[in-house]
């Protein structure tokens, strides 16, 4: 058995741990309150300094303080504030930071073996938006750690530099889903200037990159992409075909309806489903009869999307829906009744023998 002394010692130790945890919780509460105050004070002082930058004399006075802020406890906050400055003033600050070695320290930090140091450095570089940092950020997109890759993508998104667009498009589909989604979001924000690179990737890239290019082109709505997206409807990869038809739907160009229509007979169900959705978005009433036929498709999602597409086409789809009301497929009849009721026409699916 345990002797008395050991027992008292153990209990004493436990009591100490409880007391220490309580003290630590209280200390943390005090610390976080103080930290909030210190953050507020820091931001107040920094903003005052940044205002001084508007005059040459003030610039001399404020720069050392700003450089010090970029190396201190709240460096991320300082970087965010600097990123919001007007371009000429920001460039002056960046030059001062370069002279003080802050930028090169960040670039070194981006190669650190500690992941959060890398993440911190990449975040700072993203806020500073220096063109010479783009290779560092692009390199970090292939970092071994997924968190670091995400931070790099975020930073590139903050920069949106022309120098990055080609390299970004080249990276599409290579890293994981979250990074590709991030790159895609950046390309959409960059807008039409990414279209030539995306079209090239859609024609020549690997399948994942083709898929992402089609999705992005669908969001950018640039008519230059229509032809390439039309060609991509014949892609060997079903996911690319589906993304291309989805993209044509997003673009809503009526002349593309006849290109998307054959995909309603694609052997892969999700391609057919996206084709039905796209035809609804394009809204060409001439497609209503084929969409009415798609109400009898063997896949649920194709039928559901075809129904939504017919409702989206509206009044002009009424004959197709009325025809579907008469067909021998019970589900198609019910869909037609639902579609007609959505269009404000009361109808009920007639029952048939064998239903």
């Amino acid at each position, binding site marked *: 058995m345990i002797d*008395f002394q050991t*027992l008292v010692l153990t*209990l004493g130790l*436990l*009591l100490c*741990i*409880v007391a220490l*945890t*309580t003290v*630590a*919780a*209280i200390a*943390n*509460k005090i610390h*976080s309150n103080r930290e909030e105050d210190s953050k507020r004070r820091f931001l107040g002082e920094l903003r005052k300094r940044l205002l001084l930058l508007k005059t040459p004399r003030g610039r001399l006075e404020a720069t050392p303080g700003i450089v010090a802020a970029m190396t201190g406890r709240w460096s991320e906050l300082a970087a965010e504030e600097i990123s919001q400055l007007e371009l000429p003033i920001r460039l002056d600050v960046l030059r001062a930071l370069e002279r003080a070695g802050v930028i090169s320290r960040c670039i070194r930090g981006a190669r650190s073996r500690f992941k*959060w140091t890398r*993440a*911190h450095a*990449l*975040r700072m570089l993203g806020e500073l938006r220096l063109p010479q940092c783009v290779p560092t950020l692009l390199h970090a997109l292939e970092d071994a750690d*997924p*968190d670091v890759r*995400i*931070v790099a993508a*975020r930073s590139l*998104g903050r920069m949106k530099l022309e120098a990055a667009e080609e390299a970004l498009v080249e990276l599409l589909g290579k890293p*994981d*889903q*979250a990074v590709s*989604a*991030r790159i*895609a*979001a950046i390309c*959409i924000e960059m807008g039409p200037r990414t279209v030539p690179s995306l079209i090239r990737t859609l024609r020549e890239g690997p399948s994942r990159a083709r898929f992402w290019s089609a*999705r992005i082109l669908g*969001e950018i709505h640039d008519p230059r992409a229509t032809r390439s997206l039309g060609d991509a409807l014949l892609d060997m990869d079903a996911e690319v075909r589906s993304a291309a038809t989805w993209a044509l739907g997003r673009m809503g160009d009526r002349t593309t309806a006849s290109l998307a229509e054959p995909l309603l007979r694609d052997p892969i169900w999700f391609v057919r489903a996206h084709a039905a959705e796209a035809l609804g978005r394009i809204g060409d009433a001439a497609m209503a009869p084929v969409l009415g036929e798609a109400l009898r498709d063997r896949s*649920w999602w194709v039928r*559901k999307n075809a*129904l939504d597409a017919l409702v989206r086409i509206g009044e002009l789809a009424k004959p197709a829906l009325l025809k579907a009301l008469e067909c021998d497929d019970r*589900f198609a009849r*019910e*869909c037609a*009744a*639902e579609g007609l*009721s*959505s269009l404000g026409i009361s109808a*009920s699916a007639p029952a048939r023998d064998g239903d």
Partner: protein
Amino acid sequence: METLLTAPWVLDAINTIGLVILLYFSTLQLVLYSLLILSFFDMRRRLAQNFYADYEAVAKSHFTFPISVLVPAYNESAGVVDSVRSVLSLDYPEHEAIVINDGSTDETLARLKREFGLERREIVYRKSLPFRGKIRGLYRSAATPKLLVIDKEHAGKSEALNAAINLSRYPLFCTIDADSLFQDNALLRVVRPFLEDPERVIAVGGQVRVANGCRIERGRISVPRLPENVLAGFQVVEYLRAFVASRLGLSAMNNLLILSGVFSLFRKDVVIEVGGYRPDVVTEDMELVLRLHRRMREQRRPYAIQFLPDPICWTEVPETIGALARQRGRWHRGLIHSLWLHRSLLWGRHSGSLRWIGLPYYFFFEFLGPVVELLGYILIPIAYALGILSPVYFWAFLFLAVTSGAFLSISAVFLEELSFGLYRSWGDFAQMIGIGILENFSYRILTLLFRLGALLDILVGRGGWGRQERAGFGRSEASST
């Protein structure tokens, strides 16, 4: 009687049982401390991820997954409108709200119709999952196209959820109770694991906090505060301990067996594949998670079921002993039933780490916990009275039980402060620390009795959901503004 109690074999038996209890207790503490440490590191990692990577920007992009939010409601007229408003106004690119009025006998459907201008519609749906209880009507609103209300005959929560899954449009679905409110960014945050690893992640749970006492404005928690009701106050710390200090640790090892039905996000195709919610279990959420684990492990498919501490959902907790007793009894009965249904995981060849970590944890510490604790409360005083246990050991044991319990609760409060610090006032903080110490003499014993009651119910064949009382959010709103 005295002779019997002093018989050598009785003394030996008491001694042995006492030792087993001591061993059990020490192991439990060791496991809980380990989970706490794991939770601490996991929490730090996730907060750093949030700070540096800004996942919300990805979730807000065009490439996120759309989500169907399912809100089962049975006699929830008090809080259902606030809850639906909270869902509809969520900051998320594409989501729909599906409310299932599960044959309520109160004003639930009427209030929904009135508030949202619902109109009856014919909607075709695919019956991917079977469900009981006829659908009486489907309602949509022209003003809020994201809302669908299913009015069906009462058949229980599982059936209601299965019906809603059939009518949902999106590949992910999220369940939320009608007496709960989402934090603004809850969906943006809970979807993150699906964006990171869409192939592997099949379910994610968020953190549930106590809404009683908080200030609520337009379906949102505007000022988190501790409730004035003592019982609800105890539950604030209890929820913190359960979610922040233990589930996070189990999730880090992919051994989490419970995702709260109050707030969890699932991949629809996988849930349909395993057959949806099972209607004969009172804790359908736990049973579904166990079934998902089982299916994935049996088929050797890589998967992850995660818990995240930062998506937060606020829920109303019982404020009376009767309501708390019914709720805890139901949870414990459900836990035992679910574990029993999936007992083969304990010896199954493909169970992997579940066999060594997750299941033993729930089996020995959650299921058997009340029995061992009761034995301790009975046998240790007897042993002390008979002189088997010296006064020093007796008091030492009591001291150990109280201090280690207090340590875990205070650590959970500490972790909350360290990570979120939602309760801003010093008063609330001091109260939580006080509750962490006091609950060991009061609330813990109370919940022990409820869980023992549940065991007794199982032995005599009683069960069911029991009546639930809802005060509604309007009351806390009125009292706080």
